[in-house]
């Protein structure tokens, strides 16, 4: 029975000791420790969040890179295509111009030839006329009285002789 009878002295001292301990520890230990643990939890949480964010950003960055790369590739393809097109165009244009030039040259040459031919024919005609006159003069010197009659005779004869 003695064992379960609380003594007043012990109650008194337990009360005093416990309350003092509670006040002292609350001030010097529990509050700072709790604050520190909270701070640390907060900083861990923040660090985790930041890591998550960084990972997110990394992903974003990677996606951006990919996009830029794809764009660059597309740009290159476009440029290549344009270049090819331009080349073809230039080649075609050059060909066309060459053909034109050739055509023109050919025409010129033809005309030149034509002109030369006409000149040569003219000259040949003249020469032939002169030669004929000389020959006819010598042949028929005696038969015709004036040169004029000779000239008329020969030209009328030459008219009949058409080249071509």
């Amino acid at each position, binding site marked *: 029975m*003695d*064992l*379960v*009878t*609380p*003594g*007043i*002295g*012990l*109650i*008194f*001292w*337990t*009360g005093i*000791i*416990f309350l*003092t*301990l*509670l006040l*002292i*520890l*609350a001030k*010097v*230990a*529990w*509050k*700072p*420790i*709790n604050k*520190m*643990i909270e*701070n*640390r939890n907060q900083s861990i949480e923040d660090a985790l969040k930041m890591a998550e964010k960084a990972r997110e950003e990394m992903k974003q960055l990677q996606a951006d890179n990919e996009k830029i790369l794809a764009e660059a590739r597309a740009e290159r393809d476009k440029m290549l295509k344009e270049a090819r097109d331009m080349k073809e165009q230039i080649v075609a244009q050059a060909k066309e111009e060459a053909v034109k030039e050739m055509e023109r040259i050919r025409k010129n040459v033809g005309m030149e030839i034509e002109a030369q031919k006409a000149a040569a024919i003219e000259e040949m005609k003249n020469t032939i006329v002169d030669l004929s006159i000389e020959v006819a003069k010598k042949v028929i010197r005696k038969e015709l009285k004036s040169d004029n009659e000779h000239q008329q005779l020969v030209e009328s004869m030459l008219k009949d002789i058409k080249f071509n």
Partner: protein
Amino acid sequence: MIRFLALIAAGVFLTINLYAGVHTNASHDEEEKDFDVNELIMHHIKDAHEWHILDYKKSDGTIKSVSIPLPIIVYYKGKIDIFLSSEFEHGHKIVTKGNNSYILHHEKIYIADPESETGLKIEEKDGEHVILNEKPLDFSITKNVFAMFIVAILMIFIFTKVARSYQKNPGRPRGLQAFLEPLIVFVRDDIAYPNLGSKANKFLPYLLTVFFFILFNNLLGIVPFFPGGANVTGNIAVTMTLATFTFLAINLNGNKHYWQHNFWMPGVPVFVRPILAVVELMGMFVKPIALTIRLFANITAGHIIILSLVSLIFIFKSLTMSPVSVIFVLFMNCMELLVAFLQAYIFTILSALFIGIAVEDHEHHEAHEHVSH
């Protein structure tokens, strides 16, 4: 932890040696007298006015007892007397201070009866001795009070050190800090927050103090030699006082809903409400009483079992009994180590639970329940 267990184990063996030494001497000295297990156990688990450390036999064959005398503070008839317990000479001498004479009998202080030679007025009643002497109010620094002082100083020392190492080293905990942090965080995250929610910070210092106070007293109670060995948490006055603090914490902080639920339960027929009020009123007091008895009974029972097991050697008066005792006591000490943590945990979590019920924010609670359903 291993080091700690080793220490406990060493302590166990030392106790056994100590007990064995003491009582072999005793039995040698009083060979005729039977070994009184009951008295031995009661002597060890009850409070005392001196801190007995050991007995040894001097070369001339007398038994010398080494103990720390503790201050006696008694109040009787408007007068406070303070003196050292050594003045009683282990209860053999009457101490007279002014008009008051005191006598110590079985660790209880009585006012000495001038008519009797021993100072005690004993009456035989139903075959039992009843002491009729008056008793002064005893506010002595007893063994348990002294042990609590040691625990308090130890706790202040340890936890200020831990708090300082938090400031010095806010990162990974080290040393003592690393050893105690899991317990602190356990009380914080597994006891305070789940039961008290947003109001946890207000009660956290109380819960931490009560947890570590009980734990340290339990652990020191297992250690069988000087700084330990006092059966503090196995004393009903101590557990009652702690439970009273919980009772006050519950009822001083109880909100409107708590009192409404206690005395005018909503949601039940009106004629049932007074009956429930009586039940709840009883419950208000049963809670701290249960806390008181649970802690007291668990710790005291553990100590009684250990002491009984050690006593087996002296009951059987045989050395062959000692290995059995040692093995069982070792087992019980491990058990006690578990119980030391367990009871501190149970006292704290029940305190948190009861306070939590009293301060619970009702709207929030209902909203929460609504969401969870």
